[in-house]
Structures are given as structure tokens and as C-alpha cells.
């Protein structure tokens, strides 16, 4: 992939060199065309849509600042939903992670555990929320549970993989003093995975805040719900305020997460 050679051979070789990339480009082009048709992408419509978009954009400004105090509580709700769901999700994930590790769990437990983790990863949280809301009605409980369950796909897999990577001889060494399996987990496994796990959990909190916004509109409450409500009631200035509050919230969560993660990784904390 050197530059001079690339230039030279491109000029020198026949059309054969281009065959593979050419075919790939063709396939890609076909897919793009087909997708565009499916999405009803219409370039003629784009022009007027852009104009309409700008016009609509005008409705959003100026933001309705009087709505700001009422929107602070929902913002707090959104953040707290994520804050409560993350430790819960961590607890669940540790269970699944332990059950999914080759060097700890018996095979009859490991396969179903890994399988469930995989399925959960493919299940968008919104769907989990809708199902829970269908069963239990709207409220914070389905929201928290949807977020917590949603973490299992990511954290559970991470934990199971991290446990499997532990040096088996260290586990053997702790067992040689007469420790039980659970003691080995507590004293050899947990310390090894703790720092990485904590960092990932904090990251997951940040992800959960964003998800919480998305789920909010579907019934979990919080600022997402307020935003959706404002939009559907055509109160666009109010929606704009909600958007700004959301941006501030997400930004704040990101800063917090960065700060905590740096503390954890530098301090090498182990509980």
C-alpha cells in the first residue's frame, strides 16, 4: 500500500486489477440505490424539505424559557432513572457473567447464560420497555428495569470474558490453600476484574442516560416524555427548551462519567 508503488501499478496494470474493487463498487452502488428507494429518499423532495425544515426550525425559536423550571424535575428524573438502573444492571450482569464463564461455571449453566446474554444484546431496550409497560403500566419501574436488563448484554459479556481470561494457575494456587470456589471468586477473580468493570459500569451509566431520554418518550417519564409531549402538542418553543435541557443533561453525564472513570483507572481502586 505504498504510495509511489500504488501510483505506478495503477497506471501499468490492465483492467484486471480493477475487477475486484469494481465489482464491489457495483454491488455497493446497487445496494445504495435499492436502499434509497426503500427509504423513499427523494432528492427532489429534499429541496422543499430543507426549506420546510428551516421554516419549522423557526417555530422552535425562541425557546420558551418560562418552561425551564418545570422541566428541571423531569431532567432529574431521567438522570436518576439511569443512576438507579446502572447498579441494578451491574448486579444482574455479575450474576450472568459468573454463570457464563468457562472456568467457573459448569457447562449446563454456561451455555444458557451466554445464550441469554447474546439474546439480550440483540434486544433494543425500547422493546423491553414496551413489553414491561404493556404488562405493568407506565411508571418508573418498567423504565428502570428496561435499562437494567439492557445492561446485561454489554456488561454481562464483558464480565464473562474477563473472568475467562484470568490466569488459571492463580485460581489453582488459591484453591491449593483449601479455599472453596466462592472464596476463590471473592479473592482471586473479583480483584482482577474490578477496575475494568468499574470503568465500564460508569461508561454504561452515560449510555443509560441517553437511553433514558429515548425511553422517556415511550412511557418511562423524564425529559424524554416532556419533549415528546411538547412536540405532539405542537408547543415547539417548549420543546426547544426541553431539547436544551436534554443537551445539558447528556453533556453533564458525559463529564461526570469521564471524571469518575479517570479516578477509578488512576487510583486502581479495588473494593
Amino acid at each position, binding site marked *: 500500500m505504498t504510495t509511489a508503488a500504488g501510483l505506478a501499478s495503477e497506471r501499468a496494470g490492465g483492467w484486471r486489477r480493477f475487477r475486484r474493487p469494481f465489482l464491489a463498487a457495483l454491488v455497493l452502488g446497487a445496494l445504495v440505490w435499492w436502499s434509497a428507494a426503500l427509504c423513499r429518499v427523494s432528492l427532489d423532495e429534499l429541496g422543499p424539505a430543507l426549506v420546510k425544515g428551516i421554516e419549522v426550525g423557526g417555530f422552535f425559536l425562541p425557546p420558551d424559557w418560562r418552561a425551564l423550571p418545570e422541566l428541571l424535575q423531569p431532567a432529574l428524573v431521567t438522570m436518576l432513572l439511569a443512576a438507579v438502573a446502572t447498579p441494578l444492571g451491574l448486579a444482574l450482569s455479575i450474576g450472568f457473567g459468573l454463570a457464563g464463564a468457562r472456568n467457573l461455571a459448569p457447562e449446563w449453566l454456561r451455555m444458557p447464560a451466554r445464550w441469554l446474554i447474546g439474546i439480550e444484546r440483540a434486544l433494543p431496550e425500547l422493546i423491553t420497555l414496551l413489553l414491561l409497560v404493556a404488562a405493568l403500566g407506565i411508571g418508573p419501574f418498567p423504565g428502570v428495569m428496561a435499562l437494567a436488563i439492557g445492561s446485561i448484554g454489554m456488561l454481562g459479556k464483558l464480565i464473562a470474558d474477563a473472568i475467562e481470561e484470568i490466569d488459571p494457575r492463580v485460581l489453582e494456587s*488459591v484453591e491449593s490453600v483449601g479455599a472453596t470456589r466462592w472464596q476463590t471468586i471473592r479473592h482471586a477473580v473479583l480483584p482482577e476484574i474490578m477496575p475494568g468493570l468499574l470503568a465500564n459500569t460508569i461508561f454504561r451509566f452515560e449510555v443509560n442516560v441517553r437511553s433514558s431520554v429515548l425511553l422517556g418518550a415511550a412511557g418511562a417519564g423524564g425529559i424524554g416524555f416532556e419533549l415528546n409531549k411538547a412536540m405532539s402538542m405542537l408547543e415547539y418553543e417548549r420543546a426547544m427548551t426541553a431539547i436544551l435541557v436534554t443537551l445539558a443533561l447528556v453533556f453533564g453525564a458525559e463529564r461526570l462519567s469521564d471524571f469518575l472513570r479517570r479516578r477509578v483507572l488512576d487510583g486502581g481502586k479495588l473494593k
Partner: protein
Amino acid sequence: MLYVENLSKSLPNGRVLLDRVSFSVKPGEFVGILGASGAGKSLTLRCVLGLTRPDSGRARLVTSNGTEFDLTGASGRRLREARRRMGVIFQGFHLVKRLRVLDNVMIGRLGEISPWRSWFYGFTDREAAGAFEALRCVKMESCAERVTGTLSGGEMQRVAIARAMFQQPELFLADEPIASLDPSNSLAIMKLLRPLAAATPVVGVFHQPEMTARFCTRVIAIKHGRIIYDGAPELSHAKLEEIYGNELMEVLRPAPVAPAPAPSPEPAHSAGLELAKLA
């Protein structure tokens, strides 16, 4: 006291790994097990520890108050109780690198503590003090708060010995404890192990006949899975040649019993180690 009786094990293809290995060890003895790569030394140790099952024969541990443990046949709870009474150190130390040195020593006591307590309460101050004493015995007390992963090889091995000592076992087992260490550290470790033997028997697998000649009270030599020598630690050149065969020139140094530490042996035997560690 340790009784090893007729341990035998072969591979499915017929190759014999252990052939009626038998010996017994009592307090006051520091036994060094020597042998060429793949001879069966480490395998014997793993059978005693219950990490590997022999095809036939057994190993028994009889404690000072008369309790007897069947090491090769035990499993689960019984095996754990037996392991509690054996302090083991490994060639690769295998300590939990993220924990503090003191925590690693305290792990030695896990066999005595109930899982509930160790999960939710942790160790007691008394146990920490005892672990600290053990560290003092191996002269590592100044490192009690350090993260174990930052220590050197020799220091880690000393911590491993402290852990084994903290167990207050009936028997010490060492699987090539000095193979990964440089000469001065090897000497330090051997000097630590020797006094332990006065009260508690120590059985170690070694690759350094000059070390066993100098520090052990008794040497057992294994060749092709069979014991070919069991007696005084000083071995004649002819005997060494019988034990090591072709490897002798790599293993041997100019002055076997010189006061100055000899250059460390070639780690070419590590391949044989893998073979000997077959399940």
C-alpha cells in the same frame, strides 16, 4: 507425615508416566525430588495435591493429631480440608497480582474461614497481624502494603512462602520453587525453606542437584516414572549421569558443591515440565 504408596499413571497410548512411586516423609526431613524432564517429578506432586488423579495407588497425609486424609481419592470438602494442611509454593508464584502483599498472605487462611465470613466481613485484625508476622519471617514485612504485581520474582516467592507458612500446615510442598529465580534469590529461598523442615516436612521438586545437595536432608530421584534413588543428598557424578542422562551436561556446573552460587541452569527443561503436567 506423608505416605505415597504405589502411585501409577500411564497415558492412553501406553507410555508410562508414573510407575509404583512410593516413599514416605516425616517431620524433620527436607526432601528434594530430582529427575530429568518428563521423568514424573511434578506429576507426583500434583497427585499428592489432588490436582491430578493417578490410575492406581494412593497418597495419604497423617496429621500430628492422628487424622488421616486420603489425598488421591478425596474430593470436595474432604480435599479442601486436606489442602488446608498442605502449604504449596509454585514455580510461577501465582499470587493475585492486584492485591496487596498482606492480602495474598492472608489468603492462606481461607481454608479456615467460612465463605460467608470471607465475602462479607473479610479478615480479622488478628489474622492480619499473624500474616504480618509471617511476612516478617521471610523478611518482607516492609512490603506489606505494596501491590503484589510490583514485586520482583524473588520477592514474590518469599510472599508465597509466607502464605504457606501462615497456613500452619502439616506439610510443605514446593514445585520447582527456584526455577524462575536468579542464583542469589535461589539461595535466599533455599535458606528460608531449610529451617522450616525442622518442625514440618518439606517436599520439593528441583532441577538443581547442587542446591539439593547443599540444603536437603534426603534426595529422591525419579527416572521414567520410577524411583531410582532414595537417600543421602550428595550424589556422585555417576549417579547424576544415571538420573539425567543426556541432559547432564546442560544441568551440571563446574563445581557442584562450591560455596559460591552456581550459574542458574538452562531452562530447556520447561518443555519436559509441560509433559509432566499432563492430566
